[in-house]
Every structure is written in structure tokens, then in C-alpha cells.
């Protein structure tokens, strides 16, 4: 078994590496996300969430969309993770590890049940539809210039709206969170 594994590996090594390059970060992503969800200590949960963001970024890069991967790393790891961590610090610094912080009664079990029925349904559709069985086509890559052209070309309105939305969110978050000093 090992020998033919080696044979396939030597036959077209770059393809194999290319494939593993996607599966490995995806595994890390799933493990980190699972751990983040289950973790009792909030700070550990936030750090594992950051790890899952990084893994997601690497998956994007592996799939050829470098620009999006870097944007994901920059925005999520740099900013969103920090906002989450800061809000944890500001709200609940003392009783971090004590409470189980699960909903009272049987609500948590119900929530998890709902989630997994949805998962089962999704997987059912995925593995039944013919569309999804296509093999991976040639390694495509989205050059930054093309993305730039598209953004400035037919998606320019969306870009401007996104800008306005972000400024509004910035100002809104600041006003909400500001201490209402007299």
C-alpha cells in the first residue's frame, strides 16, 4: 500500500502537494472552529477563532484567490479578532473560567440538535447533486489587476456603498460604546 502511495506521489508530486495544501488548512480550520465553540474560557475561544480565521485565509490562498486570502487575514486577524478580544476584556474580566456559560435548561441541547439536522440536510444535498462531482480544473489565479479593474469597473457602486457602510459602522460603534461622560 505504501509503495503505490509513493508511486502516485512521485508521479505528479506538484498536484498532490497542491491538493494537500488545501486539505491541511481546512482540517486546521475545522478543528479550531470546533474547539472555539466548545471552549469554556472565553479568551481561549477568541484565540482559537483567530486561528480559524488564519486557516480560512490560507485555504483561500491555496484555492488561488490570493487577494481575498490576504484581505481575509488583514481584516479578520488584524481587526475583528482584536475587537472581539477587547470586548471580552471590557465586559467580563473576572468570572472568565468559572461559569459553564451555557443556556439554562435543555436549550443548548435543542440548539445543537437544530444545527446538526441542518448539517445533515446540507450534506445530503451536497453528496446527491451531480454538479459537485467535477474534478478540480487547472490552477486558476485571480490577478490583482483584474480584481482592481472589476472593482473600479462594474462594481464601483457596490464599493462606494461598502465605504459608506464601513464609515457609518465606525461612527456608530464609537458612539454606542463611548462612555456617556456628563
Amino acid at each position: 500500500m505504501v509503495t503505490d502511495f509513493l508511486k502516485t506521489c512521485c508521479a505528479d508530486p506538484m498536484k498532490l502537494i497542491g491538493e494537500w495544501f488545501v486539505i491541511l488548512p481546512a482540517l486546521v480550520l475545522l478543528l479550531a472552529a470546533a474547539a472555539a465553540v466548545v471552549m469554556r474560557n472565553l479568551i481561549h475561544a477568541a484565540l482559537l477563532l483567530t486561528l480559524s480565521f488564519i486557516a480560512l485565509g490560507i485555504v483561500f490562498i491555496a484555492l488561488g484567490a490570493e487577494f481575498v486570502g490576504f484581505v481575509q487575514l488583514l481584516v479578520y486577524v488584524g481587526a475583528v479578532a482584536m475587537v472581539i478580544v477587547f470586548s471580552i476584556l471590557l465586559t467580563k474580566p473576572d468570572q472568565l473560567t468559572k461559569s459553564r456559560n451555557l443556556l439554562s435548561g435543555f436549550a443548548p441541547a435543542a440548539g445543537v440538535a437544530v444545527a446538526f439536522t441542518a448539517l445533515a440536510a446540507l450534506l445530503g444535498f451536497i453528496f446527491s447533486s451531480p454538479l459537485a462531482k467535477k474534478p478540480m480544473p487547472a490552477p486558476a489565479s485571480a490577478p490583482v489587476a483584474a480584481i482592481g479593474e472589476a472593482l473600479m469597473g462594474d462594481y464601483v457602486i457596490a464599493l462606494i456603498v461598502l465605504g459608506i457602510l464601513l464609515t457609518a459602522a465606525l461612527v456608530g460603534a464609537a458612539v454606542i460604546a463611548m462612555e456617556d461622560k456628563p
Partner: protein
Amino acid sequence: MISSLESAPIDVLHWFLGLLGSFGVPAWILAIISALIIIGTIIGVFLSLFALTSVMERKILARVQNRYGPNRAGPFGLFQPIADGIKMITKEDLVPRTADWIVHFLAPVVMMVPALLVLAIIPYGRDMVPAELDAGILYFFAVGAGTEVAVFMAGWGSNNKYSVLGAMRAIAQMISYELPLVISAIVTAMISGSLSPSAIVSAQGGFAFGFVPQWFALTPWGFTAGLIFYICALAESNRSPFDLPEGESELVAGHLTEYSGFKYATFFMAEYVGMFAICGMFVTLFLGGWQAPLPFLDIIPSWCWFLGKVCFVAFTMIWVRATLPRLRIDHLLAFAWKFLLPMSFAAFLSAACWHYAGRGPLAWILSLAIVGIPYLLLGNAFTNRFSVSRRTYLFSE
């Protein structure tokens, strides 16, 4: 085998790979080996630069203060890094009992990773770029964002009041200085039309009037964007006027209070390698990367020029560190949001006008105005509260 001093490193690499190839090593293993060699040399160069600067910083600081600096270990104190290294490794590595030891242990690792990853996209010589990414600058900032997570982990992991306060300050500082840093870097990308560093360096080639190098730093908008980038680089690597997190005089050692031994050495190393990386980026964006300053100086190989410029910028960082007192946290943030950010927008605008006004003398005047006027207005508004002259002192006989 070595055609010219200019491409000496690349020829050595190809010769070695050819040698291996002749032993019948398959192609893909060769690719991996060449990647490992490049990584090895880069990390070797930057770690030796780190070792050198850890002693040169103390010697330059000493010379500025009219004293000798370390000169006991080895000739002119050059073996000092070895001495420091041994000291750091042999020191006991204590972890506070109530500390969150996983986070405490991981922080230096997470700090070191971005510092080394960032070295991948800096063009060291004429065609010596380890990773030819067309979104190189974005990669630089994306990976650089990892240091904030590491600083938080260091602060939180040591479970000590001082370090949490220090970590909070460091992150607030890093985030507020990241914005002007990104914008001033994007300015050069806009002018040279691409996000890849080697394209930016080649856009700075050529000489105006025969001998003036067309580096971006020598244009009005380039000078302002470069200055903003330099100031933000100081803030990003927590150095000199912005070394608030390790504000000795206030919170002892900020988020590094509970670290000792090898972990502290890793933080130290990460800070210096990070400093050199951001110096390299500054040189690439504004000082024309590996371009020679004068046309006839091309005989000196391009990677020597790059190394020289990086060492010069690192020297200025040490020089600034020796002179300026530390900024208070609210001044630091106010300076970033109220001065640097508007100035980087002004630099952005002036670069656009410079480009569309045909880059002629008129364009120079226009861009100088667009950058100069906000500088004077904002600057005076900022310092009006503290002008020295208004403070009068009465004397009595």
C-alpha cells in the same frame, strides 16, 4: 560560473542546483531544496543583522551619549551578541504559577512568525525576490497584523496587571498607526500601478537630469508619504517615541514583564527582525529598493545598495530612539488619528494630482501645495496648545 558580482548569489544557487541535478535528483525535490536554501540565507542574513544591531544599537546609543558602549566582549564588543545569547539561553525561564501557560508559551512563537514571514516579499536585489507576489504589499500588511495577536497573548498570558495594561496600550497604538501606514504604502502602489514590490522598485529607476535618482522619497508627495510611513514604522515596531508598551518609567516592562530567558530573547529577536523588515519595506517603497543613487555607481552590486540603505534607515531609527522622549498614550493616538491620517490622505491626493498634472514642474508645485498647506495648518493647530514663545517668565531683582 559567477558571471558578475551583481548576480553572484543567484549564480551560486543555480550552480549548486545544477550540481544536485547531475546526481539525478527529481525536479520537485530540487524545487523544495532551492526554496529551503533561499529561506535559509534570508533568515541567516536577518538573524546575523539582528545579532549585529543588538550590539550596534548599544554602541550608537553610547556614542550619542559620549561614552564607549560595550567593548569588553571581543574586539570593539563584537562578541557581545554571543554573550547576550548565552545569557538569555541560560537564564531561568520562569512562568507565573497562575499564568495561562499555553497562551504564555505561544505568544513568542506567534510574535516570531509574522516577523519572519514578512521577509518573503522584499526585493533584495535586481531579480532576487524570494516570493514574486503581485499583491506583495497587501501580503506585508496582512501578515503584519499577526503581531497584534501575539502582543495580546503575551499581555494576557502573564496574568499580571502591568502586562495587561501594557498589552491594551500596545494594541491600541498598533491599530491606530496601521491605517496611515497602509495608506502611505498604497500611495506608492497607486503611482507605480501595481501592488508588487519589484514593480514599485523598477518604477523608481532612471535618473532625472542625468544624475538625480527618481526615487519616490525625492518627490513632494513621496517625501510626506515616506515620512508618515517612517513614523508609523516606528510605532508598529514599538520603538523610540512610541515604545509606550514597554514604558519602563510607568509599567515596568509592559506586556513583557513576566518573560525571561529564551522567550524574552525571542520577543527581542522578533522586534529587531520586524524592525529590519519594515526598514526594508521603507527602502523598497521610497528609497528605490536596490537602485543605485547615481548612474555610474552601478558597478557596486544592487543587493549591496539595498543592504546599505536598510542599515542607514535602521541607524536613523536608533538615532531617533536616542533623542526623543516617549509620547503619552492620548497624544500618541491623537497624533495618529488627527495628524497622520489626514496627512496621508493629503499625500494620496497630491500624488494623484502630481500624476495627472503630467509630472512636470507645474505638477511639482501643485503637489507641494496640496501636501504643504495641510501640514502647516494641522501642525500649527496641533502645536498651538504648547507654543513655547507664548510662555513668558517674569524676573525680579
